[in-house]
């Protein structure tokens, strides 16, 4: 599959569990060139020896939660938003293994 083609992005979307319309896929293909241009701005920057920054503040912390049960929902509350439930379980159409 050609990289950055409509089929490529359709497949990528499918992995993310949604579909793209034909127009959307085409839009992404088109906008990807702008994105690539913007990425090129990134690539003009020399990051030799620079570590990725994952958190705004990187000082290590030491806090960990004590092992205490302090919050549990009732089954009714847990299932309240469920589109489908039965006998206390969330129900979905069969999961293909």
């Amino acid at each position: 599959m050609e990289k950055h083609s409509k089929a490529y992005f359709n497949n990528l979307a499918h992995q993310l569990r949604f579909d793209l319309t034909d127009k959307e896929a085409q839009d992404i293909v088109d906008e990807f060139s702008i994105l690539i241009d913007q990425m090129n701005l990134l690539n003009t920057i020399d990051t030799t020896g620079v570590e990725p920054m994952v958190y705004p503040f990187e000082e290590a912390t030491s806090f960990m939660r004590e092992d205490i049960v302090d919050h549990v929902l009732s089954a009714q509350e847990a299932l309240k938003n469920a589109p489908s439930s039965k006998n206390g379980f969330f129900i979905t159409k069969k999961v293909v293994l």
Partner: protein
Amino acid sequence: MSFTSVKNNPVEKRVLEALDKAHLVQPILNAMVSFIDPLSQLEDLKSKDKNLPFYGIPVALKDLVNMKDTITTGSSKILDNYVSPYDATIVRKLKEAGAIIIGKASCDTFGMGGTNKTAATGPVHNPYDLSRMSGGSSGGSAVLVASGVVPMAIGTDTGDSIRKPAAFCGIVGVKPTYGRISRYGIIPYASSLDHVGFFTSNVSDAAVSLEVLAGRDDLDMTSSFKPVEKYSSLLKGDLKGKRFGIITNVTNAIQNKNTTTQFNNLCEKLKAQGAIVSEITLNEDLMKAMLPTYYVIANAEATANHSNLDSLRFGVQLEGKDNEEVMIASRTAGFGPLLRKRFVIGSYALFTENQDLIFRKAQKVRRLIVEDVKKALSEVDCLIAPASGNGAPLIEDTQIDQLSSEYLVAENFMALGNFSGYPSMTLPFGFDGVLPLGVNLTCKPFEERLMLDLAKGIEDLTQLNDLICEVKP
């Protein structure tokens, strides 16, 4: 509308007035997504201390904030029917401080946008010119404060989502230091960039609000242990000897002469008050790389953050022949085209084969940007620049040049505060025609007290506090 003016009314009256007004302006501004019946909160208030900072003050939440037994849609379609089973930490704090929450304000879906045009309930209108946008993503919250519905509204800020709409709507918008206010219970956009903050109509009210909302929360491991200062009682507005650094990259990129002139006037006034105003130039290449850096990091984190929206435990579910089909149908219908595009791009950046070149590259550039900002702030107390080159754009805006420096730098530089986690806020400093203009301040980490004090000094100079733009049906 200030806290003080609100307090002139008896509690019940002011809350009901706020709700009435919210309903009244809704057809015009479209700022609200859902309303909350305040009766039980008013009942709870009766046993509370009348001296509480938010005693009986009506507030609005951005539609990303969970409050038990209320609808929280994230201004999305997929969570259209979602009833929160729990309170966000800030909701608990607001209630403890006596606030009465009257509803959820519109935003770009999951905070992912800067226009508020992507909200499932449609665009939010700027009260100063209804054909113009509120800005986003916290557009509804900004407009509710600007139009005098509530004196305070909660927002979130991942790139500039509080500070930009605050500028467009002529009010104060505060994004404190990362970790200052707990994120627990707020629907995320990008966890390492997301900040919780708020809108008020003046700096003193902002100081009171921060005092209530800030503080350590064990439910948010990134929340800070640093003690919360008495921001409100420490507010003096003394500018003497305070060092401001103008970000020249931003001022140079601004094309609108009116903005430039008014900003220069402000700087002269600061000097007249004894402030030391200098020019600071950040690395231009880094400034231009900021938007793509932001785009990569934010969308990569967002695609993972929203993987929980599979319609199995909550959310709007569509039909399908098996579980996977159900998930695909629900997510396709539940996310708008813009979100789907962003998720695709975010996911692309995360592929193992692309991570070094894109995602980790962006994280490295982020570090360089932050180091540059840190260096700049080592010489001054505060970085200052107009929050935007212009007043609020038209809702039906034409295509902009996404590679121009005006766009890349002047319209997106405030993400500096998100990359670094440094405290940053905007407040009004003038008008371009009828449209308010905002000025942005960014300070060193956890120097909110200083930042609010500087803002107070500016507010005293401009006298642009408590601006209300009444809209009449």
